[in-house]
C-alpha cells in the first residue's frame, strides 16, 4: 500500500506533536541521560534481558531521580562480540550524547569498552556485568568503574572448602576462554597453595556438546570433578557423566549450577546434590537486604524469573552505585564530571549481597558466597549458602607482588598436577 498524502501529513503532524511534548518535559526538569548496554541478541540474549531489568529496578527503587535530576535510561544491545559492544557504546556516546554509560555484559566486551572509554575521558563509564580479570588489572582506564567482583574473585574460598571435604586430587573440565580461566584461577590459587592437586585440566571449546571422549579420560583415582561449564554445556556434561557411570562428587563454577542448570526441564538428577560452588550472590542468602531485593524484583517484574539472575544482580549494583554517586554530587556533571569521578572512586555502600568498595584500579572488593546444592521441601533444588568470604580483592587475598608473580589465569596458570 502506498502512503496517501493525507496519511503522510497526519504522521508528520503526530511526530511534530510528540517532539514538542518531549521538548516540553525536558525543559521543565533537568535530566541525566544514562545509556545501558546489555545483550538482546546472540547467546546471552535471555540473561541480557534480565540485565536490563536490573537497571530498571535500580532506577525504580531510586524513584527515577538521582542528584535532583530525572534519570532517563537509553537501552542498547550487543551480541556478546566486542566490536558490536563498542559500536553500540559509540552510538550512545557520540550520537545520543549520554552523560554516563553502563555496560557491557560479557568479559571480552568489557575489555573493548574499557579501551574505548579512554577516548572519552570526560565522562564516566560503569561496568554492566562483564567479569574479565584483565579489564581492571591490565592497563586500567581512569574513567571505567566496576562495582562488581569478577570471575576469579567469585571462586575464592572454594579451594579451601574442597580440601575440607577431603578432595585431595581433582580432575578439571572447563571451557577454553577467558572467563573459565579466571574461575579456575580463583579456585586453584588457594587449592594448590594448600596442597591440593589438579591432576589434569581438560579445556574444551565453548559449545562442545558431546563430552564422551573427555569423560573417558577421567582418571579413576581422583576424589572429585571440578566442572566449570555454563548452561546447556553443563547439563550435557552432567547427563553424559551419569550415563558413563561416573559417581564422583562435583565442584562447580559460578554458572555451572545456577538456576538455569538446576531447573532444567526433566527429571532431577540426584547426583547434583552436594555440589559445591560459589559466586557474588546466591538464591539462598538469608539477609533482610537480599530478601528485600528479591521481593522488589518480583514486584517489579511478575513475569520474569522467580528470583533475580546473576546478570540482574550485577547490572543492579552497578546502576545503584552510579545513582548513589550522582546523589552524592547533587547531579553536578560539570568540569568533565570531576566530582562524580571522585565520588564514585570513594563510594562505599551496602548492596543486596554485601558491602562493596573499590580498589585503586576501580574494581570492586566484595563478598563471595560459597554454596552447596540442596533439596528444598518441595523437591526443587537450590544453592544453600554454607560460607561467606568477606572483602575479596582482585588479587585473591594474596599480596600484590605474589599475585603479579602468578600472573592472570590461563590454560597453564596456575598449575599443580
Amino acid at each position, binding site marked *: 500500500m502506498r502512503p496517501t498524502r493525507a496519511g503522510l501529513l497526519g504522521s508528520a503532524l503526530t511526530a511534530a506533536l510528540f517532539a514538542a511534548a518531549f521538548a516540553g518535559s525536558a525543559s521543565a526538569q533537568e535530566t541525566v541521560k544514562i545509556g545501558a548496554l546489555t545483550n538482546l541478541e546472540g*547467546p546471552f*540474549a*535471555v540473561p541480557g534481558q534480565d540485565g536490563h531489568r536490573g537497571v530498571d529496578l535500580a532506577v525504580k527503587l531510586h524513584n527515577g531521580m538521582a542528584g535532583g535530576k530525572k534519570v532517563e535510561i537509553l537501552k542498547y544491545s550487543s551480541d556478546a562480540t566486542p566490536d558490536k559492544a563498542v559500536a553500540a557504546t559509540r552510538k550512545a556516546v557520540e550520537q545520543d550524547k549520554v552523560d554516563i554509560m553502563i555496560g557491557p555484559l560479557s568479559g571480552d566486551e568489557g575489555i573493548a569498552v574499557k579501551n574505548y572509554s579512554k577516548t572519552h575521558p570526560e565522562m564516566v563509564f560503569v561496568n554492566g556485568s562483564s567479569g574479565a580479570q584483565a579489564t581492571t588489572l591490565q592497563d586500567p582506564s581512569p574513567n571505567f568503574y566496576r562495582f562488581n567482583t569478577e570471575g576469579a574473585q567469585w571462586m575464592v574460598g572454594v579451594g579451601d572448602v574442597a580440601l575440607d571435604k577431603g578432595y585431595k586430587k581433582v580432575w578439571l573440565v572447563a571451557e*577454553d576462554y577467558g572467563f573459565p580461566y579466571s574461575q579456575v584461577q580463583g579456585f586453584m590459587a588457594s587449592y594448590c597453595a594448600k596442597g591440593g592437586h589438579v591432576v589434569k585440566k*581438560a*579445556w*574444551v*571449546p565453548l*559449545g*562442545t*556438546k*558431546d563430552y*564422551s*571422549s*573427555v569423560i*573417558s*579420560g577421567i582418571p579413576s583415582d581422583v576424589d572429585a570433578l571440578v566442572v566449570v561449564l555454563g*548452561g*546447556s554445556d553443563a*547439563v*550435557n556434561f552432567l*547427563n*553424559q557423566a*551419569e*550415563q*558413563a*557411570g561416573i559417581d564422583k562428587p562435583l565442584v562447580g563454577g559460578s554458572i555451572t549450577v545456577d538456576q*538455569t*542448570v538446576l*531447573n*532444567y*526441564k*526433566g*527429571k532431577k538428577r540426584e547426583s547434583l546434590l552436594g555440589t559445591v560452588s560459589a559466586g557474588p550472590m546466591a538464591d539462598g542468602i538469608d539477609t533482610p537486604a537480599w530478601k528485600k531485593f528479591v521481593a522488589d524484583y518480583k514486584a517489579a517484574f511478575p513475569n520474569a524469573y522467580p528470583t533475580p539472575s546473576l546478570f540482574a544482580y550485577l547490572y543492579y549494583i552497578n546502576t545503584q552505585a552510579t545513582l548513589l554517586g550522582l546523589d552524592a554530587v547533587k547531579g553536578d556533571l560539570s568540569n568533565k564530571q570531576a566530582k562524580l569521578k571522585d565520588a564514585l572512586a570513594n563510594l562505599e555502600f551496602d548492596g543486596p549481597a554485601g558491602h562493596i568498595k573499590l580498589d585503586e584500579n576501580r574494581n570492586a572488593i566484595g563478598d563471595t558466597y560459597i554454596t552447596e546444592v540442596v533439596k528444598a521441601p518441595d523437591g526443587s533444588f537450590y544453592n544453600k549458602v554454607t560460607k561467606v568470604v568477606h572483602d575479596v580483592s582482585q588479587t585473591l587475598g594474596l599480596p600484590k607482588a605474589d599475585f603479579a608473580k602468578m600472573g592472570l589465569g590461563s590454560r597453564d596458570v596456575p598449575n599443580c598436577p
Partner: protein
Amino acid sequence: MNRMRLSNWFWLAVIAIPLAVFVVWASVTNPRQFVSTLLNGVTLAALYFLVASGFTLVFGLMRNVNLAHGSLYLFGAYMGWVVGDATDDWFLAVAVGFASAALVGFLLQVSIFRFMQGQELRQTMVTIGLSIVLADLMLWWFGGEIYSFDPPRAIFKSIPMIVVGKYPTYRIVVLAIAIVIGLVLWWFLNRTKVGMMIRAGVDDRQMLAASGVNVQRVFAITFAIGAGLAGLAGVIGGTALSVSPGEDTRYLMASLVVVIVGGMGSIPGAAVGALLIGLAEQFGLAYAPTYGVVFTFLIMVLVLAFRPTGILGRRSA
C-alpha cells in the same frame, strides 16, 4: 590415466601413513582411551547419520536443499519432550518426535515447496526464512530453558565392555537404532513400490511423471519421511545430550558437512560421511581439544578438492 592413478596413490599415502602411525601409537600408549574414543566416534556418527539421512533423502529426490532441516530436528525434540513428560513413556516420545516432524514436513511440502519446484535459489531463501521463523517461534513457546529426557533406567546406565571397562548403554542403543533405521531405509528404497518410485524419481523425474505416477504424492511422502527422521533424531539425540535453542543450526551444520563429505543424495554416503565426521570430532576432542574442529573441515576440504561430489556422490547431470 596411469599418471592420474599414480598421483591418487601418492595422495592416499600422504593421508594414510600418518593416520596408521597415529593409530599404532595411540593404541599402544593408551588402549583404553583409544578404544573408547573409537566407540564414541562411531556412536556420535550414528546420531549424525539419523539426522543427515533424512536431509540427503530429500535432496536426492527433489534437489531441494532444505535448510529448515535443523528446525525440524528441534521441533521433533520439543514435541517428544512434551509427550514424554506427560505420559512418562520414552518410546512414545520417540514416536511422537517422528510423527510431529513428519507432519510439519508434509505440510511444508504440500503448502509451500510444491509451488517452487526446480527454483533452487528461491527454495534456499524460503527454507532459511522458515528456519529463522521456526527458531523464534520455538524460543517464544519453549523459552531458553534446557530440556532433558527421562529414558527407561535399563538403557540409561553403563554396561561392561572390553578394554574400556564400562560404557554408556544408551550410546550403544543409539548405534543400534541407527543401524536398524539404515537397514529399514535400504529395504524401503530397494524392495517396496514407493521406494522404487522414489529411486526412479531421483534418476529422472519427468519420465516418472510421464509413466503415470503422481509425482507430487511421492514428493510429499519423501519429505514427510525425511522430516520425520529429523524429528526422531531430535528425541534420540536430545536424550543423549540435551535440547536447547541453537541445536537446530548445530545439527543443520552437521548434516550439511556429513552430506557434502558423503555425497549429496546418497544414503550410504550419509553413513560414510557421518562415520568420518563423528570419528574426526571425537578423536580431535580427545587428542587435540583446542584444534579438534580443524579436522572436520580438513576432511571437507580434502573431499571437495579430490571428489567434489562427495565420496559416494554421483556426478549428477
